[in-house]
């Protein structure tokens, strides 16, 4: 029996399909952390406007900006993890297609969840959505009239941008659809990640199988709540 080919541990891992899946699981895990943290931070939009007119979301945004170098380090780390995830997704998907070059005339699935069949599609939608989202709320290219507002004290007015952004039913609808598809990705992804890392053992299996649907539900409800609340006029009354 030959031993694993030389090189370092990372090289050995990436030289195999299992290693590539482990890369996807770890980078996906990082992004699950981001998706949930980003959602909790943004849910502050639902808080009422205080007396002084400086909304919690504006203070939160200023706090993030003030971290300076750290913010850029996190952004760079997220970008690297994302690139690795997408690269592995594309390499493995191509390989999987080649492994079943001739398809069946009749095909049938027994127990695979629907979400698991659309991982590449939901993933590519996430990719497109993230590009749009950055252009919209980070770069201000999509809706310049909503971007670049400032409070009297000079603070960047994220609150106004947020409300104006989602008052537009086209943009709000786009965010709602995209977040449902992100939830669909997570529905399979979170549970799959544990199996890939070898952690889905008999003792924890039933909880791990619930983790995907649970995380997906939380992410969908939390993220969809924000545009819906704006569309229904439940928040943002102070913005004209």
């Amino acid at each position: 029996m030959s031993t694993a080919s030389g090189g370092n541990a990372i090289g050995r891992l990436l030289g195999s399909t299992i290693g590539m899946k482990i890369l996807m699981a770890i980078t996906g895990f990082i992004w699950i952390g981001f998706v949930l943290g980003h959602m909790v931070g943004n849910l502050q939009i639902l808080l009422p406007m205080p007396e002084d007119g400086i909304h919690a979301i504006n203070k939160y945004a200023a706090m993030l900006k003030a971290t300076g170098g750290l913010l850029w380090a996190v952004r760079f780390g997220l970008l690297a993890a994302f690139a690795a995830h997408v690269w592995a997704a594309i390499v493995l998907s191509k390989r999987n297609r080649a492994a079943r070059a001739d398809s069946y005339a009749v095909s049938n699935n027994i127990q695979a969840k629907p979400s698991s069949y659309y991982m590449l599609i939901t993933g590519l939608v996430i990719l497109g959505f993230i590009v749009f989202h950055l252009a919209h709320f980070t770069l201000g290219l999509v809706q310049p009239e909503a971007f670049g507002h400032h409070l009297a004290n000079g603070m960047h007015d994220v609150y106004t941008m947020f409300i104006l952004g989602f008052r537009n039913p086209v943009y709000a609808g786009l965010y709602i659809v995209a977040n449902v598809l992100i939830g669909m990705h997570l529905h399979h992804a979170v549970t799959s990640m544990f199996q890939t890392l070898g952690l889905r053992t008999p003792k924890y299996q039933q909880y791990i199988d619930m983790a995907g649907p649970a995380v997906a539900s939380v992410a969908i409800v939390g993220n969809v709540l924000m545009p819906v609340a704006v569309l229904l006029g439940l928040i943002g009354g102070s913005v004209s």
Partner: protein
Amino acid sequence: MNITLKVWRQDGPNSAGRLETYDAKDISEHMSFLEMIDVVNEQLEAAGTDPIAFDHDCREGICGMCSLQINGTPHGPERGTTTCQLHMRTFKDGETITIEPWRATAFPVVKDLVVDRTSFDRIIEAGGYISVNTGGPQDANAIPINKGDADEAFEYAACIGCGACVAACKNASASLFTAAKLSHLALLPQGQAERYERTSSMVAQMDLEGFGSCTNQYECEAACPKGISVQSIAHMNRDYIKASLTGR
């Protein structure tokens, strides 16, 4: 009972194949699926047509030779059953049944429904054994083994290497087969010495053969005639991580 069959016919590895329709008349519901094909083949031969080539040997569910994708499911609709043990009473009178070979780049079609599964043999050759070069066999029970480990190893040892896992997987991945063979040995004391080298070599061979990667949909587990669990894949992945980190 009367059945309409749509059967994949392909003259050789490099010829184009097609689905052909045959009528299987007066089939007894007590026949096995393979006996039903035997009857159809007799009729085909009587009519001067080439009989349908298919794999079979023991016809009692233990050798792993029989195959067939029956209405889109490996070994047909009955869970935990090989094609040779599947009975015609599972189907309805007048039904149309589509029969195709296992589809995988690593299992090329030889003729009609027969595919070449020697890629599995090469995965085993890469490490699916224990090297014991001297001495006679030890007394049974001389080495104590936990009941839980023994039972789990036994479940994995039930793999007959038929390839239903590959046939069921949308990626034609051989993960369940490779994992069953690896975990079977990794759970037993005799398998420890070569455990991590074995994991690296067999996984490398599995990739080399052109099987796809695992996307954790567990179709393999559902299609396995021996009900082997995807727990084995989690086990393989754990050992693979250890093997890679320690350079074995």
